[in-house]
């Protein structure tokens, strides 16, 4: 299918692909201590990432640590959450921002109106997001493909519009003076400095990654993969498919809620327009661009999607060429880069092997993510009816 276009030698990303495959092979055969060394390296890298020396290149125009929190860290958190739904279970969710909003609003509302402890509001927001995930999923997860996408899209809009029209939670004006996270005496103080929030979101990302990987390797992850590949066969092999799809929705929603809670604690101010549809689409783009189903890919995708538009604010050589502020063109540049990346690596930057195979087959994969592509054996009921 699409992959055939990528085989030419002219493609510079081809070599990158070979390098990635090599790294992956090494990783699969790596010993436990080697893996832990890599984990340690990643954590150390993340810890020193806010350093000004790195920031001066990565984000010359804006405060690098703040950019790391929003959009980068927040997008990564959201993308890891959406990846559970889209990448692992193969369910297309176009309204993921709703859970982000629910997490954000519960922190803002219960913090300002009832004076709850910040951490309690975050926990409550996560629970609330999970419950709404189940409420959304219960009637809709019997739908497949396109239909599910449309319903989730509607859900995302409903949440935003409801927030817009409910005066109790500030209506269109939103909620101001959202309390910062409660200080942990002697350890950390959450004020106006961005650094503590960066480490907070870093901890959240690490935890969510650990949970996500463990799920993927367990019975739950196998059930999701089976559902993604052949839902009917999975059901006939004893997988309660509905229950597991609901679980994917709930877990994705919880991660979305967590991201919302952290965001609100840093931003101090939220309003309905903080949670537009375009954010759902952007996070989905991050998941697909990075390589749905493969966590390192998804994280890289989210990073790229979050970082590029910020970086394009300050492109000095362009300023000279265009004789204009390049910030005006940054979304255009961003779109161009996205098109280029999808043309050169249609399976995503770092696709999982399994997902890549599904894409090349043209059945399953994207088919189960979006339109149901009728494969040779998609439906027992029609093909075997007459037998």
């Amino acid at each position: 299918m699409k992959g055939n276009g990528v085989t030419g030698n002219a493609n510079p990303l081809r070599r990158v692909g070979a390098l990635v495959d090599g790294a992956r092979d090494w990783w699969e055969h790596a010993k436990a201590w080697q893996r832990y060394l890599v984990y340690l390296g990643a954590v150390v890298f993340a810890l020193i990432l806010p350093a000004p020396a790195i920031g001066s290149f990565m984000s010359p125009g804006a405060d690098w640590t703040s950019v790391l929190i929003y959009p980068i860290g927040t997008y990564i958190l959201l993308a890891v959450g959406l990846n559970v739904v889209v990448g692992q279970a193969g369910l297309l969710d176009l309204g993921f921002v709703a859970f982000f909003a629910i997490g954000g609003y519960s922190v803002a509302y219960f913090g300002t109106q009832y004076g709850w402890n910040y951490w309690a509001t975050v926990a409550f927001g996560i629970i609330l997001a999970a419950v709404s995930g189940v409420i959304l999923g219960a009637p809709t997860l019997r739908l497949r493909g396109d239909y599910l996408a449309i319903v989730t899209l509607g859900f995302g809009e409903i949440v935003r519009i409801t927030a817009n029209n409910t005066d109790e939670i500030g209506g269109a004006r939103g909620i101001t003076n959202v309390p910062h996270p409660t200080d942990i005496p002697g350890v950390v103080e959450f004020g106006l400095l961005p650094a503590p929030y960066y480490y907070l979101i870093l901890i959240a990302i690490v935890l969510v990654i650990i949970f996500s990987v463990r799920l993927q390797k367990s019975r739950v992850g196998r059930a999701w993969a089976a559902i993604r590949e052949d839902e009917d066969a999975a059901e006939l092999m004893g997988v309660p498919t509905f229950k597991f799809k609901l679980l994917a929705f709930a877990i994705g929603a919880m991660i979305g809620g967590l991201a919302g809670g952290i965001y609100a604690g840093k931003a101090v101010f939220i309003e309905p327009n903080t949670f537009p549809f375009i954010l759902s689409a952007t996070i989905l783009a991050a998941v697909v661009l990075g390589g749905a189903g493969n966590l390192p890919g998804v994280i890289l995708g989210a990073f790229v999607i979050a970082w590029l538009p910020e970086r394009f604010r300050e492109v000095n050589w362009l300023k000279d060429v265009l004789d204009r502020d390049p910030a005006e063109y940054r979304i255009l540049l961003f779109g161009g880069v996205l098109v280029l990346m999808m043309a050169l690596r249609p399976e995503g930057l770092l696709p999982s092997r399994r997902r890549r195979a599904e894409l090349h087959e043209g059945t399953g994969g994207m088919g189960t993510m979006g339109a149901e592509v009728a494969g040779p054996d998609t439906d027992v009921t029609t093909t075997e009816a007459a037998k």
Partner: protein
Amino acid sequence: MSTPVLQLDNVTMRFGGVVALREAKISINPGEIFALIGPNGAGKTTVFNVVTGVYQPTEGQVLFNGTRIDGTKRFKITKLGIARTFQNIRLFHNMSALENVMVGADSHHKTGAIGATLNLPWHRKEEKRGRELARELLDFVGIPGRMTETAKNLPYGDQRRLEIARALATDPKLLLLDEPAAGMNPAEKEALQALIRKIRDSGRTVLLIEHDMSLVMGVSDRVAVLDFGQLIAEGLPHEVQTNPRVIEAYLGVSEDAS
């Protein structure tokens, strides 16, 4: 006599105006290898789909060990002890052979999201047990060396065996095999025959759909013949083979004979 493992009690299956199955009565005893044969489109796979809960019969009942199972959810029927393979192989193509079988083994596992995320002891125990069972079963069906291979990269015959292993992993009392010999060469068919016997000897009942007559005659204890959704004969293999109605269904009637 003991309760039949599976009983189809006057099962009719209609799709609009098409009658795929008409008042079918089948009764399968424990420990039997029972073959269902018939020309293409006779309704054999419909029987499988009715038994495994893919279809709800329009009329009649399906009894498994004496309890009604029609209307029960598909995954619950699997848990009760009925597993199947598919006519057109439906493995999880991009998962490894071992993972495919583990999905089957998972049907009796209980670990949910919490057990898995916290890596609780019973989760580890279930994983270990599932992996061991999967290894044993791959060995049992004769493809021990294929563990880490992606399912779709296996040769055709091995894919069929893998499907059987996956079904066995759910620990079925009744195993439904839908044309397991399709596309196999004579040597593979021979081995399959031995495998089917081995499955029966491990205490399971086998219901088999097959077109390969030498396999059917060689392995089954009893044979039933379907034609246009109707059961036209049932009995021992050699009885069925000589039944004039069966010959008629398969070969048609010569004009001067009727």
